[in-house]
């Protein structure tokens, strides 16, 4: 088949333009459920979460929202709430409860003395995560934007990571037989949404934080509050920052 140079240029040009249009169309089609295309640059984010203990009312919204958003199996918890009761100076022996993880709230607090408070817990997405360290095959890892995730197609279900997590945030999914845990709603935060637990929290006790975003309220939070992480002696690089955390919290 012979063609003139003009014909070749025209046909090539049409081919390139149509292919590009098709590619763009394909990208639109494979965008999110809400129709927003995925334009996410992991290098621009470093995810964390802030938790203000004094704002938590133990309503359980977060636990229910997480279960609904992430299909969390009953009896297992990607996030949960603990209710503490500390009497006087006995910080070393608080009474702690978490009935079904707090998914249906809490029964009325009984007893006259001491102080009570709620502590929401979740995966701390540690920067030096012991769970990532012990995985024998690389099925759990920290993503480039700071979220500790599980590759459920690769996980063997050996449970070493569950043993290594100091915070008890991992479990084995009863159907998938792989390890499961909070993903910081990765499928949401990469689309500009907040996590399900933060969305549902009525008092703003839980807030998603992006440490690489200069406008994120986390910077003010860290500056203005007395902030702690859980089990700092474990040196896990935990990125769940608690304000108002009592010394009795485990």
């Amino acid at each position: 088949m012979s063609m003139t140079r003009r014909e070749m240029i025209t046909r090539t040009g049409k081919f390139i333009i149509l292919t590009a249009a098709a590619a763009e169309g394909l990208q639109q089609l494979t965008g999110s459920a809400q129709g927003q295309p995925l334009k996410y640059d992991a290098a621009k984010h470093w995810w964390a979460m802030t938790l203000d203990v004094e704002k938590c009312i133990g309503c359980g919204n977060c636990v229910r929202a997480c279960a609904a958003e992430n299909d969390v199996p009953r009896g297992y918890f990607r996030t949960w709430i603990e209710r503490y009761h500390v009497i006087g100076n006995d910080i070393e022996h608080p009474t702690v409860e978490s009935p079904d993880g707090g998914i249906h709230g809490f029964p009325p607090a009984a007893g006259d003395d001491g102080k009570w408070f709620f502590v929401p817990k979740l995966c701390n997405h540690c920067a030096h995560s012991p769970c990532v360290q012990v995985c024998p095959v690389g099925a759990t890892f920290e993503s480039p934007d700071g979220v500790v995730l599980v590759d459920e197609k690769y996980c063997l279900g050996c449970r070493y990571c569950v043993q290594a997590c100091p915070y008890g945030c991992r479990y084995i999914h009863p159907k998938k037989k792989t390890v499961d845990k909070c993903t910081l709603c990765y499928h949401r935060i990469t689309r500009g949404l907040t996590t399900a637990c933060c969305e549902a929290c009525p008092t703003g006790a839980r807030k998603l934080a992006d440490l690489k975003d200069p406008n994120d309220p986390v910077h003010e939070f860290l500056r203005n509050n007395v902030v702690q992480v859980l089990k700092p002696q474990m040196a896990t690089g935990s990125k769940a920052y608690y304000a108002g955390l009592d010394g009795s919290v485990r």
Partner: protein
Amino acid sequence: MRIRFTDASHLVVLVLAFAAGLLVFVALRYALVPAGFGSLGGHYRGPAVAEVAARPIAYAGQTSCLPCHDTEGKDRAGGKHKSVACEACHGALARHTEDPSAVKPALPVASKLCASCHEKDRAKPQWFPQVATEEHSGGADCKSCHMPHNPDPNRGAAQ
């Protein structure tokens, strides 16, 4: 002492068998390591990140609600519930935003929903508004005095 080959031939066969086994192992390894392993720099399957990110969404997020439910949004903005997201009370509604007429969420039962946050309990922080329902309303429906979106009792009951 010089070793004759015939005395050591069995050992040579052994070493060759090991070498062959090692080669097979190395070849298998390169064939079977999944695609994209280490592609993002760490010791994991790079494509796994996108797989996690591709999960379906259940909570729409309030920015999706407000364009249609502008009145409720404005109502809420003027009151104490302005920081409470729509789905905190109404549940996960991404399906509804995708097809509003086909998927209509059930209205939450006020007395149970309101109590889950506002029932007085000594474990809740002092600053949080909470009442003992029996003393407060004698068991009457919360909506008889409070409109959920803007719960200021002076603004009147829910319609």
